[in-house]
């Protein structure tokens, strides 16, 4: 693992985070937004694991943190999708901008 410096991982993670952000903002379909958020969380995990691997200090913490992020992401996705399905079933549309009953 000699060749790859930490900064490369951070750049990839940063870029992945930015793309995830771009997806979340760009899409009107709720599920697509969720995917964007999943990408961002993956970027965070990448960061964490990379830091735990390269930075001095307790490597375990980073990985455990990543694991927790995974589980939470799963739970969040589950609830999120449940809500999205509920909205789709009620309002027949998944386009977030159509859902603007509440405004002002």
């Amino acid at each position, binding site marked *: 693992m000699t060749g790859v410096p930490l900064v490369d991982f951070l750049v990839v993670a940063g870029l992945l985070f930015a793309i995830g*952000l771009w997806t979340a*903002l760009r899409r009107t379909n709720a599920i697509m*937004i969720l995917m964007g958020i999943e990408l961002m969380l993956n970027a965070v995990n990448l960061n964490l694991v990379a830091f735990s691997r390269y930075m001095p200090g307790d490597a375990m913490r980073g990985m455990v943190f990543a694991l927790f992020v995974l589980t939470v992401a799963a739970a969040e996705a589950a609830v999120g999708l449940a809500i999205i399905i509920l909205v789709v079933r009620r309002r027949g549309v998944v386009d*977030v901008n159509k859902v*603007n*009953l509440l*405004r*002002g």
Partner: protein
Amino acid sequence: MVGYAWIVPALPLAAYILHVFVGRRLKERAAYFGVVAMGLASVLGVTILVQAAGGASAHVSVPWLQIGRYSVPMGFTVDPLSAVTMAMVTVVSWMIEIYSLGYMHNDPDFNRFFANVNLFVAGMLTAVIADNFLLFFMAWEIMGLCSYLLICHWYRDSSNARAATKAFLVTRIGDVGLLAGIWWIFSITHSFQFSQLAPALHAAALAPAALTAIALLVFLGPVGKSAQIPLQIWLPDAMAGPTPISALIHAATMVAVGVYLVARTYPIFQLAPGALVWIGYIGAITAFMAASIACVQTDIKKVLAYSTISQLGYMMLGMGVAGSMVAGMFHLISHAFFKGLLFLAAGSIIHAVETQEMHRMGGLFRKMKATSITFIIGALALAGIPPFSGYFSKDPILSAAAASPYPLMFWLGVLGAFLTAYYMTRACLLTFFGKPRDQHVYEHAHESPAVMTVPLWVLAVPAALLGLFAAGAFRSFLAPGYVPPSGGPAASALTLALPLLGVLVGALIYGGGRTAFRVAAIRALRPLYVFLKQKWYFDQLGLALMYIALGVAWIVAAFDRYVVDGIVNGLGALAGLLGRATRTLADGSAQAYMLTLLLAVAVGLIALQLIGG
């Protein structure tokens, strides 16, 4: 008895209180109590005068108010000046109250009339014997109030109400000037006591200009109250009140209290010679101006009103030039009697013929003997024909004016005297002699009842004889060791000749049937006649000032309603507008919220990076 001087004002005050609380039930009988009280007061007043003449005097004061280190005592003082005036006021007021019993008989507001009269007399008497400026000013304002209430006695006619408001406002302007004077003096002397003012001011060694300013400010009060130029516009309108009131307030007493104030605070004026010159000029001009206007008046009460202004002008002239208040004061006392007499006589004529227009009178001599004779006695005294009191009180003033370094004052005075004689002759001829011009009025004329004619005769006595007997005694009593300046024989000759000349000219124009000559004379002096008729355009000046004040008031009110309120509401609306803008931010789409969220994070990050820790 001198120590009980406070009882004199207390009696009419008691009458007032009786009228207020019990008057309505007792109806006209309540007035009798008032008259009796006034009688007692007159007796007491005269005895005090006699004792004062014997050298007695009193000064009683009781602590009334303590603010910090200033103590303000209240009290009364009996000295020659106050004793004389008090006596005159009590007698004249008594006569007028008796007269009013007849005049105001079965008037619906009889009780209110007498209540106000008694309050007024109490006020006047308190002012006369007050020993300090504060009590004096309080009484001064109470008199203003009573004059206001009595002018609009017949309040149903709104012109009376307007006249009353005008009277009060114009005098108020004067009063406020007096107030400023009082505060200025107080700020220097820290006391209101008349006795202490002059020495304290002298000790303070103020600049002459300041002293003159103080004196003139104090003089502003009398200018308002005694109807001097330019604040004289209210007195003719004040004739709207019942005639006894015109006699009491607007001839004998209230208007004279201004002169009395100048007399009481004369030491202050003596500290400021410049002010005395001012007073002299104002007096002279007022005398001449009022006399000229009186010549063209057709309403008998207006004639007497302008005559009063003119005589007050003389008193002020006396104060200004005579070096002592004696001349002025003596003219005040004598004027109170004969002018009171004239007004009461005019009142009895009006009471009889129900009109005030001289042109509808004529030939009343035969019908109203007593009133006519007393009126004529008064007229002669007023004109200054010897041996009546007018001559003896006016002569020292004119001779002092002649002796003074200001010839204009003398000539205005003397010409005034000529005009006075002229318009009084005109008035007498128009009302009493010649053919009755209005038959209906003539039949209706009848002599007034005794209750009105007796006071006329009583007042006629001092009007005729006061000058002869009391002139010398009065001068030595009020100002021992004072030598009145004399203007030389020419001046005294003139003061004698001109009134006679005035009578002659008056008789010439208005005597006999020579109407053609009268019409020609009037047409010849047409422009002068119109100018005088318009009362030298003073009324218009007053109205103009009033409209300016109302205009400014309206502008201020509009400014308040629109501009100041506008700004406040504007600020409120601004908050609203801001709210509307931020409200559109939340337009309902989750996408926009997320975008704003992340944009904010991005901006925050950049700012932190740039500015940093």
